[in-house]
């Protein structure tokens, strides 16, 4: 009885289309929600480093000084946690898997040259402003000290 049962399946399988797909000759279609790999739109990223702090597998490295955002897609476990935490919504989870590779190559994204120049200028301006503010504060302090000095002598005279 059971033999007949299974021969039915065996015969059906002979004439059916295979259940498996002929990957990679037939491209695989992924569902809309499939968590495949992480992509970052670097033009929106502000290098805040939140994704680096959140990543449970330490796949992301953010280097503010060098203006780079780096991911090792082979360390990433596709948990989507970084995407949920990105304040600028620059990270997205794509539905295709990371391409195979012979070594664990990292993806390094860097700000564009204009953006780096802009950032540098902004940083320079900020530093200058801070320096100027510091200088002004020092000058104010010195003036206050000078003003206070006669009062001090006055006090001494009273004594």
């Amino acid at each position, binding site marked *: 009885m059971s033999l007949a*049962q299974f021969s039915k399946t065996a015969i059906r399988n002979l004439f059916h289309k295979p259940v498996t797909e002929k990957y990679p000759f037939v491209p695989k279609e992924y569902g809309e*929600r*499939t968590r495949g790999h992480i992509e970052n739109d670097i033009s929106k990223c502000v290098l805040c480093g939140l994704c680096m702090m959140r990543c449970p597998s330490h796949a992301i490295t953010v280097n503010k000084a060098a203006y780079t955002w780096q991911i090792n897609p082979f360390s990433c*476990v*596709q948990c989507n946690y970084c995407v949920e935490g990105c304040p600028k919504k620059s990270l997205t989870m794509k539905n295709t898997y990371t391409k195979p590779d012979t070594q664990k190559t990292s993806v390094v994204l860097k700000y564009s040259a204009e953006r780096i120049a802009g950032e540098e200028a902004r940083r320079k301006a900020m530093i200058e402003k801070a320096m100027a503010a510091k200088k002004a504060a020092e000058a104010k302090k010195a003036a206050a000290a000078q003003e206070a000095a006669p009062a001090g002598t006055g006090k001494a005279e009273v004594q």
Partner: protein
Amino acid sequence: MSKISVVPFGPQHPVLPEPIHLDLVIQDEKVLSAIPSIGFVHRGLESLVDKRDFKEMVLVAERICGICSFGHGMGYCEAVEKIMNITVPDRARFLRTMFQEMSRLHSHTMWLGLAADAFGYESLFMECWRIREKILDMLEMATGGRVIFSICDVGGLRKDVPDEMLAEFDRRFAALKSDYDHVTEIFLNDDAVKSRLCGVGVMTIQQANDLGCCGPFLRASGVRRDARMTNYEAYGELDFEPVTANEGDSYARCKVRIGEIYQSIDLIRQCIAKMPAGEVQAPVKGLPDGEYMMRIEQPRGEALYYVKANGTKNLTRFRVRTPTFANIPGLMEIMKGTEVADVATLILTIDPCISCTER
């Protein structure tokens, strides 16, 4: 009587999906006793609580196992939610139950395939895994992952599942029943399968209780104990009765799992039918402070999650007792007196998951 000898079995063995090592003390092809050793795939996941905050730990907890991943994430979340007094929205409770049952379904189907493979039934193995693929496809459609779903979160779920998708699932599950009828028929009625399973590795009700077994292994010995009876998540609102068998042998374990397959399909369809509308994520405020022990029923049996927190973002202790850990003493007991050739199938009948056990 020939002399007693010790034969090593595993950690690498064609029938073992995962590494467990046994020293089989044998005499005349009969196993006198077995001494297990584990520890080949220990990862130290529990101690990661020091380095990952309590929300990140959900993702770590899920990765304890590749098969019952949803349950591990859910058990952990439930424990943390109990500490923080969070009420999970109804829709999230039902969806969690649905995902948990889908995990059970694909786990048991995988087990059927592995069992078929152990008997040498290659095409039956592939038939089972073909069915399992349909469930994995649905899981991927809903959560984005095939085995690691990353959908459970403290307070509910990260994503909602739209109603149209649920309706589609309902249709697919209804159709799945006939696929199962076809393969389970062979497991339950085929003479060759029966000759490998019937009367092999009998565990009495007394032994099952004394050795603290759990899951289908326990229920196949006639004990009506299932953590789902504690009515966590939405189980209290579903029509649920644990599947049991009385024989206590390998065939009974197979029968219980097959019964649970049909029961899971039924529970999933009940969940879909009763699915409430609304939010799936409750707001999470503050940090956990306190301790809690959560029991849930995983495909392989009852799992315990102990969580202790002291009001900081990192937990102080996280402990998982997985079902296979509880079933290993029982396994050693049923092996006594069996043929060496049956050892491989006996190990399979407890559906071991060694990665879970070692975390």
